[in-house]
């Protein structure tokens, strides 16, 4: 699974950054080699030998100082120039283009909306490979940070200060990301994934997301559906307080990347969310095992 930003860059932006990093790394290693070399050679060649007195004082020459100040400035200029061009490559201006995606950070999950397509989902982003999406970032509570290492730069999601970032994947695949600004007790489990797909697969996904899920058929699922409404689940899930669940069953993970999306894990979550993700904003409803089973049956129909 591609997670390393410099081992596996998977977008033009990440590739440009990786190249800049390799360049800076080589320069940095050279500088360190010089300094370490001086230290090691001096330690060997200029160690005190028995009977040796104090060496003659050499308090320096302004000429040498000017030379190495100049050399340092030159080195920094050499780093600065590709820095500017890489910034342009990674973060070109949005030019009043309407965002393709609106991602809202919540404690501790991601609300993902496609304004042009009328789709709302959570914790997963689907996008067609090789198409550049403009992502509008905002926060519903504290500062979060959107980061998919293989694909794009970090960008803070600050309440009161919306931002934009470009998102693109070279190849279809699953790309993992995480919130990168400490946002409270479950910051560690605010993970996100980007699923890049060929155009046809993306179109199919879109289609499915826009359709209402088919009504439940099995008896357990029917009971589960009515429990969903009686137990006030819809008060949070569907109003933006909790993640939208209309197509929950199609997602890879639960609880923002904490566990895989299997019926057993879903049951574990419903039984006691606080035991699975302590501090999360979903209270423990003290559901009976039977109720949990029926709710799971219902939720599994939401594709």
């Amino acid at each position: 699974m591609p997670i390393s930003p410099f081992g596996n860059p998977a977008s033009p932006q990440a590739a440009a950054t990786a190249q800049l990093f390799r360049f800076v790394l080589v320069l940095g290693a050279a500088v360190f080699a010089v300094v370490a070399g001086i230290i090691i050679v001096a330690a060997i060649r200029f160690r005190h030998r028995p009977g040796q007195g104090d060496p003659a004082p050499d308090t320096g020459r302004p000429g040498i100082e000017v030379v190495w100040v100049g050399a340092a400035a030159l080195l920094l200029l050499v780093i600065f120039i590709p820095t500017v061009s890489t910034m342009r490559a990674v973060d070109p201006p949005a030019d009043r283009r309407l965002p393709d995606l609106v991602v809202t950070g919540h404690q501790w999950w991601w609300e993902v909306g496609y304004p042009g397509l009328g789709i709302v989902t959570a914790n997963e982003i689907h996008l067609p490979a090789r198409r550049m999406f403009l992502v509008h970032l905002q926060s519903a509570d504290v500062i979060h940070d959107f980061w998919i290492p293989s694909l794009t730069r970090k960008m803070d999601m600050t309440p009161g200060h919306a931002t934009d970032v470009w998102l693109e994947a070279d190849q279809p695949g699953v790309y993992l990301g995480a919130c990168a600004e400490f946002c409270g007790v479950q910051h560690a489990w605010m993970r996100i994934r980007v699923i890049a797909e060929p155009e046809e697969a993306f179109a199919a996904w879109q289609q499915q997301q826009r359709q209402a899920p088919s009504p439940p058929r099995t008896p357990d699922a029917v009971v589960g559906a009515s429990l969903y409404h009686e137990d006030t689940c819809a008060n949070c899930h569907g109003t933006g307080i909790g993640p939208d669940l209309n197509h929950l069953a199609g997602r890879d993970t639960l609880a923002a990347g904490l566990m895989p999306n299997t019926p057993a894990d879903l049951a574990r979550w419903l039984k006691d969310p606080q035991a699975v993700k302590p501090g999360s904003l979903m209270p423990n409803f003290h559901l009976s095992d039977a109720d949990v089973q029926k709710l799971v049956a219902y939720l599994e129909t939401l594709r």
Partner: protein
Amino acid sequence: MREIALPPGALPAPPDRDGGGLYAWITSLDHKQIGIMYLITTFAFFIVGGVEALLMRTQLAVPNNTFLGPEAYNQLFTMHGTTMIFLVVMPMLIGLATYVVPLQVGARDIAYPRMNALSLWLLVFGGLLLYFSYLAGGAPDAGWFSYAPLSEKPYTTTTGVDYWILGLLATGIGTIAASINLIVTILALRAPGMRMTRLPLFTWMVLVNSVLILCALPVLNASLVMLLIDRQLNAHFFSPQGGGSAILWQHFFWAFGHPEVYIMVLPAFGIISEVIPVFSRKAIYGYEFVAASTGAIAFLSLAVWAHHMFAVGLGRTADLFFAVASMLIAIPTGVKVLNWCATLWGGAIRFTSSMLFAMGFLAMFTIGGITGVSFTAVPIDWQVEDTYYVVAHMHYVLFGGSAFAVFAGLYYWFPKMTGRMLSEAWGKWHFWLTFVGFNLTFMIQHVLGLAGMPRRVFTYPDLPDWGRFNMISTAGAYLLGFSVLVFLWNVFASLRAGRPAGDNPWNAWTLEWATPSPPPEHNFDLVPPVRGRRPLWDLAHPDRPDPAPAGFYGLGGHVPGPPPGGKALDVSGPRLGMLCFIGTEAIFFVMLILAYVYYHSAAHTGVVAARVLDSGRAGINTVFLIASSATLWLGGKSLEQRRGGALTAWLAVTIILGALFLIGQGREWLTLVRANVTVSRDLFGTTFFTLTGFHGLHVLLGLFLLAMLFGLAVARRFKGPTSAAIEAVALYWHFVDAVWIGIYSLIYLWALAG
């Protein structure tokens, strides 16, 4: 070196007292004992902070670990960072300076001994207050940087963040006081002949650092105060829901936070600049450039703060400005590293434990500096900030840098402080265990960051290599922890049975080595003549003294020296100290004013200043306050003419006028509150009451000071024609008035202008 028979565990004895029991130490005003107490306190906090780190590393050793839950872990990383920065590195360097600087300048003690003790005990008190939070509902858990709005209510409702604020305010005040003390000591108490261009580099860097502290700490104090007012009085400085700005917190915090990291490293640079020359047996290469680059670093450090905010989305221009400034600061830093290397070159190196740590510093700090420069290539920062790459970088500069330098300094000055040598055999074990343990812990964290692991996470998924790399780091951390025990063993064993040190065990050249170890209470029986940068070298080699400093491009070297027997700077102690205090308070007020200006200029609904403020009444108050400055000035004139009665009268009138001002201010506040203009209603209230409130507190403090002067005048204690106390209080009072004129113009006149 003379061999002296010493009783076991000889530490400087307090004056006129036998042995020096606990009470004598606690009530000591001697800078040497206070310095040692700083070192003991900060080392104790170092161990606590280290235990916090080991707990964290244990939790992170394997993926999905359940050793610690998120609540505990988040408190630990907050406390670890806060402890190491505010209770260890910064005060440990101040403690070393407190001990060493008066000796290095040939002074009898630090400038203000009582204030010195106050600084130490504020550190202890603040640290204990912070740690009390563990018992009082939970330690702070919003990070050492406490970003808003997470640190605000309703997101953090436990009191941990409040203890964090109060603890840091206490230690912050102590730190400012210590810096004022060091500045005045260095400027006003130097031995004859010690011109500024002849200062030992440790002292010089402490001077520059102290000025930087006076610039940066008030920024922190103001920010803390604003956060506290938000949390406790429901104000809105930093909460977007109330119209405040979360980004403003970041700007304010990093405007302190970035200079702070240089505050933690400049004195370390000073230690290295002492140790490397002594153990290379040759004067430092490029003294002028090492000294000048210190000033450049301090100045530039005030202009780079938003490189901590590259991911906020401030815009291309802002990002580029801060990138360029941050690149520039690498140049003077590089100058230092190269000069230290050039000092080694051609020397006769002795590998004492102190020197091993200094050379280790050179290599480790260079690595940290290089990764620091990598962040200035902004797109790289956009990938690696908030990951373990940053954690690696900061520990290379703060541990591989500052902590290694502190160890070098401890091995170097322990003999002076105690009269006994630390064991070199144990010292070498300590060094190598530290060096290996440190690199094992932190080198791999660069890779973890590059592999995508964010920081401040209590656990992580089982992604390829993450578990393995974390396990290596944890193993290194345990080794590092063990190395500290080796050091402690060395200290205790050497205190009991270390080789007697004599005055100058290292054959060093600065003045602290020209007195017994440990020094007598008054420091010097006789201060050697100072004719250059290495007074003891010049004494030992009258045939080949150090060449007279050529000066820095003609500056400094040829400035006429002080009159024989006179002090180098003709500024009376209290006046210089008060000027420093005024400078730092001015910056505090600038922060509050900035908050007012920021919100007032932004478009907003809500209270309109022009409608609720009565500029006329406030104008009358202003007249009272300005008049009080005039009457105080007249009081000073009476003192000059030795008219005690007139002085007493003028002081009384000043106090009355000041009290009238406060009463007028109080009435205005009451009017506003009755009209429902409160600190919590909106941003006008928040910023108005904070700014005028703190000004009022300063006036109140001034009234107390004036009342004391009045009492002394009534008791006829002022003989005239001058009084340092009256001069100092007058400076303060005039400053407070000047601030009010600024506030009046800003708030009331601006409101009138509409």
